[in-house]
């Protein structure tokens, strides 16, 4: 029975619920913008990692190397697009 019970997944599920509750703090309490954003970003990253590794089984795939590479590439493109746009259109724009 113990082997059949997916303890890891149940724990993971509870943990992901907890993370969502923690993220709610940013809205429920009157926090400063920086503090709220920090909480959101941290919980979001942990949440994404949890989903990816525990529930989407990235590690267990035979071609996990390809998947990691793919995730890395996606992160690269996404971050470059977002921060590059901010850089080109906001921070580095002459006409303010």
């Amino acid at each position, binding site marked *: 029975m113990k082997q059949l019970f997916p303890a890891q997944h149940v724990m993971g599920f509870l943990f992901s619920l907890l993370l969502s509750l923690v993220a709610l703090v940013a809205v429920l309490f009157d926090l400063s913008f920086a503090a709220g954003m920090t909480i959101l970003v941290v919980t979001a990253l942990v949440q994404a990692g949890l989903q990816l590794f525990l529930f989407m089984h990235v590690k267990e795939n035979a*071609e996990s190397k390809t998947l990691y590479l793919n995730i890395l*590439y996606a992160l690269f*493109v996404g971050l*470059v697009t977002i921060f*590059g*746009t901010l*850089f*080109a259109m906001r921070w*580095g724009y*002459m006409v303010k």
Partner: protein
Amino acid sequence: MKWDEFFVTGEPMIYAAMVSIVVVSLAIPIALTYFKKWNWLWTNWLTTVDHKKIGVMYILAALLMLFRGGVDAILMRAQTAVPDNGLLDGQHYNEIFTTHGVVMILFMAMPFIIGLMNVVIPLQIGARDVAFPRLNAVSFWLFFSGAMLFNISFVIGGSPDAGWSAYFPLASLEFSPTVGNNYYAIALQIAGIGTLLTGINFLVTILKMRAPGMTLMKMPMFTWSVLITNVIIVFAFPVLTVALALMTLDRQFGTQFFAMQSGGMDMLWANLFWVWGHPEVYIVILPAFGIYSEIISTFARKNLYGYKSMVVSMVAISLLSFVVWAHHFYTMGHGVMVNSVFSITTMAIAIPTGVKIFNWLFTLRKGKISFTTPMLYSLAFIPIFTIGGVTGVMLAMASADYQYHNTMFLVAHFHYVLIPGTVFAVIAGFHFWFPKVFGFMLNEKLGKLSFWFIAISFNVTFFPLFILGLNGMTRRMYTYSESTGYGPLNMLSMVGAVGLTIGFIILVYNIYWSVRYSPRNIKSDPWDARSLEWSTHSPVPEYNFALIPTVNRLDAHWFAKKEGKPLATGKYEPIHMPNNSGLPIIMGAAFFFWGFFMVFSWWIPAIVFGVVILGTLAYRTFEKDHGHYISVEEIERTEKALRGEQHEN
């Protein structure tokens, strides 16, 4: 809306176009009925999921679009050939350069490349089809309905007229009130979804369906280039999808993302457009590099020099392609820091590209070169493309770009990379793989004749534009006065354009001539080539390979020929193949009508066709289709027939 707003009126050329469209769209069904070909067309082509046939349809559509874009080009050159010309008015000229750009990039270069990809990739990796054959048909029909929707704009409603990059605020409802730019947003959206699906499809195909033994580093270079291209497609096209959706929202639903009122940011469109647009130019150039690699090593009779460095430089180009986009708008208000960063990343692209150029030169070194038509295009590509590359580095310097920006110098530069890069490559690939698909070769004499016309006329057409640009002629101006002195060089360019036209007419005549007179019964490997597609019969049977080949090295087919060992041994087994389906073309048609009604903001019919689209998806979800098997007897019969042996029974 009144009927005279619905149809474009008042232009004799447009009336002529309308008449010809009506004549053609009547002639095709009449001919099909007369020759009793409806059934043949439906079962063999329109419903096919065979990657080779889908590839052929892509290339046919691309040739059709090459004609459309070419007519636009000739009209532009004719209009600017002499000062103060009145052939076209300003509005008409704006529409023509806009559709020329969109058609040539998205409906000619892309489908031509994707067509060659479709024909060649499964054969080159020893697979029997792509990973998702049905999805492949959906991709084609989405592209096709997008292309058709875009093309009817010039008789119904009016063409987009804000340039192929459709910059805001010009493209906003305020400054472009006709439905033209709605066509742009919706048609590109539909075709773009098709391209995105192709990207996923080929990514999976190449990663999952290679013949046993073919590791990544034993793949032919064209397969490598297509793999990297599809990675770029998958990551770049979503940006276009979002940008076009925002454009549609702005133009038709009253939002203010890019419009100038209420805090919209017009430059954000240019930014998003080029976040997609710059990777897009690598999407059309990398497969071209792959094609040249195949052709050059085949006709130099040598293995490709620097295989690993070729792969590394393509990966480097794919990453760099995402970090250079702001060089398209250096002059639009960035600070020094932004321009410097994007200058450096842009110039860095010259390094991996240079590595590739040298690899091709070293592949040629001491090779036994045979000057076939595909090889001539590949050889011409190297020096001409280098001119394009060097002028690209000139444009990459942000401070110097203030001089070149939006002049004919820029126009000359991108034609110097896109034509010898992409167009020469797809024509070379077309000549190269034609016998594989159809079982007979294109005429070499006519092929070489058209090559010389195209290669020389290309330079006559576009080199003068460098000088015109430096003399101050800006792009997209529909006329100029005699005192500017632009007349003679523009006339020279017009002469070149006529030469290019003759070259393409010879190319088309070559297809006609070869279909009629070219000898059949050629060998399966007429070029004595190196990769797996040449190890099966020409024309390729439905199942590609009766026995799946086993690969132990790069150019396995070449070494198998040298050593006289077959690549595949064993007994035939029944082959599992996908079934044809009419669903993709129905879905494409639904998308076409949905798009058409969206363009005109006729919501009720748009919703109806939206429901039809969802219906086709739902039908597919519940459809049970397990494909069919080709029996061993049928394989034996086909193989014997293709080897030219008599039937036993």
